């Protein structure tokens, strides 16, 4: 009995280790390559670099538009996530905590957004953004990402808000809080775990997105990182060393944020559970 359980556990562990290697190895190779010269990458693609010097990183920071792209990505990603969180919590609060006619229908309407890929609507989207004068602007991108992220945000936060005890809301109401104050001062602080999940869920796809900037951004000075990095891939020759350094530098902030947010998320889940 215990032997069988042991072997099952071992099998699961092996699978997980295999999976971890599958995921981490390319990142490992990318990081190592960012310290090599292009010639060294071709000569010794998987080995350790000759030295861990930061030449490539200095180069992308000083000789390319990387800092600009990086700033653009930060603006677009943070803008999108803030907008998703604000709109998401407002919609989810109404759907999750008030009973009104058409509540379920409206909820399903939001959920239907989960099933429709936004890219299919590229042409109407283009026409619409053009009408608003939002082509080739960060605001246009932010609106698209917010629309894309809203269904999952509403789904996650509505479910979470429904689990909070309604007496809390009633207590605040009797204490004299307005509906907005109940949301901001009582419910919002308690919703932090859900806010973190939604942020994590949207952070990576928005940061990495190549498609929408490609279609909607034309000016060099508005390009985001994924789009900007393609500059390093020339038609005839590619400066692989610089490209890998760029990719690595682009990945670092997301990974760091991810780690910080997951900590928050776990802390949120277990708060109050242990007395």
């Amino acid at each position, binding site marked *: 009995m215990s032997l069988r359980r042991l072997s099952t556990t071992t099998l699961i562990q092996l699978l997980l280790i295999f999976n971890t290697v599958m995921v981490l190895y390319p990142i490992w190779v990318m990081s190592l390559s960012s310290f090599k010269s292009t010639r060294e990458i071709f000569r010794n693609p998987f080995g350790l670099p000759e030295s861990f010097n930061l030449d490539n990183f200095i180069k992308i920071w000083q000789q390319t538009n990387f800092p600009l792209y990086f700033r653009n990505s930060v603006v677009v990603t943070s803008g999108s996530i803030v907008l998703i969180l604000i709109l998401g919590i407002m919609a989810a609060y109404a759907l999750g905590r008030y009973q009104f006619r058409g509540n379920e229908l409206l909820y399903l309407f939001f959920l239907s957004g989960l099933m429709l890929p936004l890219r299919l609507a590229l042409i109407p989207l283009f026409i619409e953004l053009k009408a608003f004068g939002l082509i080739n602007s960060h605001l246009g991108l932010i609106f698209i990402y917010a629309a894309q992220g809203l269904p999952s945000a509403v789904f996650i936060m509505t479910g979470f808000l429904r689990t909070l*005890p309604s*007496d*809390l809301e*009633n*207590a*605040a*109401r*009797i*204490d*004299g*809080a307005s509906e907005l*104050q109940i949301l901001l*001062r*009582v419910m919002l*602080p*308690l919703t932090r775990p859900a806010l973190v999940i939604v942020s994590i869920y949207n952070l990576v796809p928005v940061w990495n997105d190549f498609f929408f900037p490609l279609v909607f951004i034309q000016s060099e000075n508005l390009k985001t990182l994924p789009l900007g990095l393609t500059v390093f891939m020339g038609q005839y020759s590619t400066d692989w060393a610089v490209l890998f350094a760029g990719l690595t530098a682009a990945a670092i902030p997301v990974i760091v944020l991810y780690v910080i947010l997951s900590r928050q998320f776990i802390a949120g889940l277990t*708060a*109050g559970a242990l*007395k």
Partner: protein
Amino acid sequence: MAEVVLEHVYKRFGSVTAVQDFNLQIDDEEFMVFVGPSGCGKTTTLRMIAGLEEITEGTCAIGDRVVNDVPPKDRDIAMVFQNYALYPHMNVHQNMSFGLRLRKTPKDEIERRVREAAQILQIEHLLDRRPRELSGGQRQRVALGRAIVREPKVFLMDEPLSNLDAKLRVEMRASISKLHRRLGVTTIYVTHDQVEAMTMGTRIVVMKDGLIQQVDSPINLYDKPKNRFVAGFIGSPAMNFMVGTVEGDRIKSGQFDVKTDELLSQKLQGYNGKKVYLGIRPENIGLEGYTTIPERDNVIQANVDVVEPLGAETHLIASVDGEASIVARVDPHAEVRAGDKVKLFADVKFLHAFDLDTEVNLRFS
């Protein structure tokens, strides 16, 4: 200075009527308890007074003002919830002062009231703690504190003690009574526990199926229950009921034959030959050889099923006529064992009789 007056109040949820024709006047400084089994509408009524539920029909007035359309925050009430509903992300001080801060009360005034309430409730040392770092009893005190600092006209309490363990509940019961005496604020207290109702209330509303059964002081509810429900609900162990036939001034069945006093026999005149419920409390039954009850012709023959010695008294659980199970409180030193056939005497002054259909108490009809 706040009375609470409810007139012809109804609450309907779709086709279900939760509260029916509720009429009640609660005097200033009164401690009114709503008691009844779960689903009887007591909490719904409280929530209507709080403004958390809309009143379907009728009026509710606090002070001189009809508050049907007044939002909860403007009703000048404070409520204590069953699960405390403390704000988890605020410490005790912030929890208690939240309402005052929302109302833009001056800082030093907030500080004074919070300190004072904390002192009354003996939670001064807990002001910096979060609710999750508190025990159940401490949380309960904080919830009370949050209500006190508001200095409202009316306190509403929704089963505030039901999440506490038995010992703490008895302690908190006394502290809440003391608090009420000290602050003199009109209080409406909902509970399903008749002991809480009896010990705390100046008056008690007994409810069942959305209807008020009786409103009276604890002792009157006990002595003069209007119907069989109230008689069975108030008192522990509960009143015993047996079906018997009225014959002149006696009520009889196979195993019992009791005489009724003058008042009851008068009321039973129209029932000659008919069946009624005979009601008698466990403490008004005596065991042959161990009782001071004078009458010897009020006899109940019973078969003892269980003997429960409690030290100060012993409860005999016995069957009469093979069906009705009755409880008798007897001398703890009585020598009775399960299986014995015993002779019990009923105290004639405390006999009740209830109509079989309407269940009205005939003694007080």
